[in-house]
């Protein structure tokens, strides 16, 4: 009978039954929405019943008691990043950084009471959603504060040279360890994934003098190289010349001995013949040699054996010209 009425007269306002159905529908929808919930793949759901912690649920579709239980989703897979001393405006292939200096964060005292500008990043993950939600209120601020605390403590124990050069890695590792210790002591449920030093610089007004040191270091290398170059130019040559000198001496030695032997052999040969008839041979050799020699000679003067001086002869010679 009622239904007929509706069919006959579907016009507004609807009957009271329709209102009832609508309300019921809304109630059912609300109940369904507060019963089912989904947890994304990078998060977990933390379920509280009347404010009290009950359980943690994994990714997927789940049921809970409507109204009494509430869910808080915590991104446990995501890695969060904090920057110190600089800000990234837009990450990408060509990352854009904020032009400000943020020196409040980055300026710090080193162990040798100098000043360094240190920029770094901290990456962290939530490993314990229970602790993360219920143990510390402002966890991001805590991570930032403690990062600064730790970094200044570490840099404060190192010289400025060390922080700028060889000590970077070691300082970062040490800082990461210390930061984790502090956060653990607060029961933060946070795991520091990495702590990395970015730019570490001397303050701007000191920079030129640091560069000067680098130049000086290069100058030193250059001086040394130049000296070695000169060394290498001279020494091998000298070695070669020394070898030559020795080789020449050896050549001389061979020659000298050979000649001596030759001369000796010749003499012995002559002598063995001469011995057979010394008088004749002697005279013959003398005359033959001189006869040969005299042929070459231009002038021969003969003077009496009584003559005391040969001077008159020589002046005569001069006069002839």
């Amino acid at each position, binding site marked *: 009978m009622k239904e007929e009425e509706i069919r006959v007269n579907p016009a507004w306002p609807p009957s009271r039954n329709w209102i009832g159905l609508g309300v019921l529908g809304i109630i059912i929808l609300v109940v369904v929405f507060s019963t089912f919930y989904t947890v994304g793949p990078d998060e977990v759901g933390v379920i509280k019943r009347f404010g009290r912690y009950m359980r943690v649920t994994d990714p997927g579709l789940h049921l809970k008691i409507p109204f009494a239980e509430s869910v808080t989703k915590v991104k446990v897979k995501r890695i969060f990043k904090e920057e110190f001393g600089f800000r990234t405006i837009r990450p990408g292939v060509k990352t854009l950084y904020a032009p400000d200096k943020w020196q409040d964060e980055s300026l710090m005292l080193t*162990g040798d009471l100098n000043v360094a500008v240190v920029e770094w990043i901290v990456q962290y993950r939530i490993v314990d959603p229970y602790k993360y939600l*219920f*143990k510390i209120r402002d966890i991001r601020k805590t991570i930032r504060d403690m990062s600064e605390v730790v970094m200044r403590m570490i840099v404060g124990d190192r010289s400025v040279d060390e922080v700028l050069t060889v000590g970077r890695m070691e300082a970062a590792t040490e800082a990461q360890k210390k930061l984790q210790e502090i956060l653990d002591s607060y029961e933060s449920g946070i795991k520091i994934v990495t702590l990395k030093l970015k730019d570490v610089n001397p303050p701007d007004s*000191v920079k030129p003098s640091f560069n000067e040191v680098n130049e000086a270091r290069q100058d030193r290398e250059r*001086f040394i190289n130049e*000296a070695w170059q000169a*060394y290498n130019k001279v020494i091998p040559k000298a070695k070669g010349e020394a070898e030559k000198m020795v080789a020449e001496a050896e050549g001389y*030695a061979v020659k000298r001995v050979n000649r001596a032997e030759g001369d000796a052999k010749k003499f012995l040969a002559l002598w063995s013949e001469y011995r057979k008839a010394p008088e004749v041979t002697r005279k013959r050799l003398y005359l033959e040699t001189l006869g040969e020699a005299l042929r070459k000679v231009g002038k021969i003067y003969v003077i009496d054996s009584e003559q005391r001086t040969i001077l008159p002869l020589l002046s005569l010679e001069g006069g002839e010209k």
Partner: protein
Amino acid sequence: MKTVRPERWIPIGVAVIIGLIVLSSALYVVDETQQVVITEFGQPVGKPITRAGLYIKKPFIQKVNYFEKRLLTWDGSPTQIPTSDKKYIWVDTTARWKIVDPLKFLQSVGSERAAQARLDDIIDSATRDRITSTSLYEVVRNSNREFVVTEVFVQKEEEIGEVTKGREYVSREILKEAAKVVPQYGIELVDVRIKRLNYVEEVRQKVYARMISERKRVAEQYRSEGQGKKAEIEGMREKELQKITSEAYKRAQIIKGRADAEAIKIYAQAYSKDPEFYSFLKTLETYEKTLSGDSVIILTTDSELYKYLKSTTK
């Protein structure tokens, strides 16, 4: 089907609504992050509730005061403090605290903001006390860790003393001193840390000037080191050169000497068989060698050669 008349519905509805209001005022939820003190007309009732869950109270007349149960942040503003060695520095501390006795907290400070203000005074004065009685390097450094030396060693203009306390120790001292005062507020001070530490502007300029002069000295040292090394290599080169040439000379002389000696021996052995014949041959050889077209020979009439010449011309 009988229709219910609206006149009957009204009282039921009113009753339900009143019931709901009463219930919502009687029931309250304490969250995992909260703790609660119930007050009745401002007067605390019973023990504070620190366990999360659903609770019941007298509706309307009892009030629920919620307090944070988690660790809270306190961040001080930087203050200028002189160290015991009269260096002015900016010190910025940060602390972590929590409400451990909400009842006391409610009675003594009432709100978090008021508590922060109390902490400002307490931690600031504790920090000031500690820093002024500590020298700068004790606050900056944390231990006596040896620096890794990377540059040439340059004597410091300012000697840094032995670190007996270090920053962590100083932080702990501040915490200890401040923590003594706070329990009366129902607060526990968990940690106090020195966050930032910087020179005041004038000191900073001086430090920069010192850093610059230090660098210049390092640079100078590098240069002179380079020059020294260069001279050293040059000296080595000269030495090596002299050694090589003189050694070669020595060897050459030895070789030649040995050969000469050998030759002498050979000659001597041969010529000693008949020295007279040798000198005769040598004389002839000399004549042969020395006489040439320009030579003039003067013969005495009694010389052997003259006799010979006479005989041949006859």
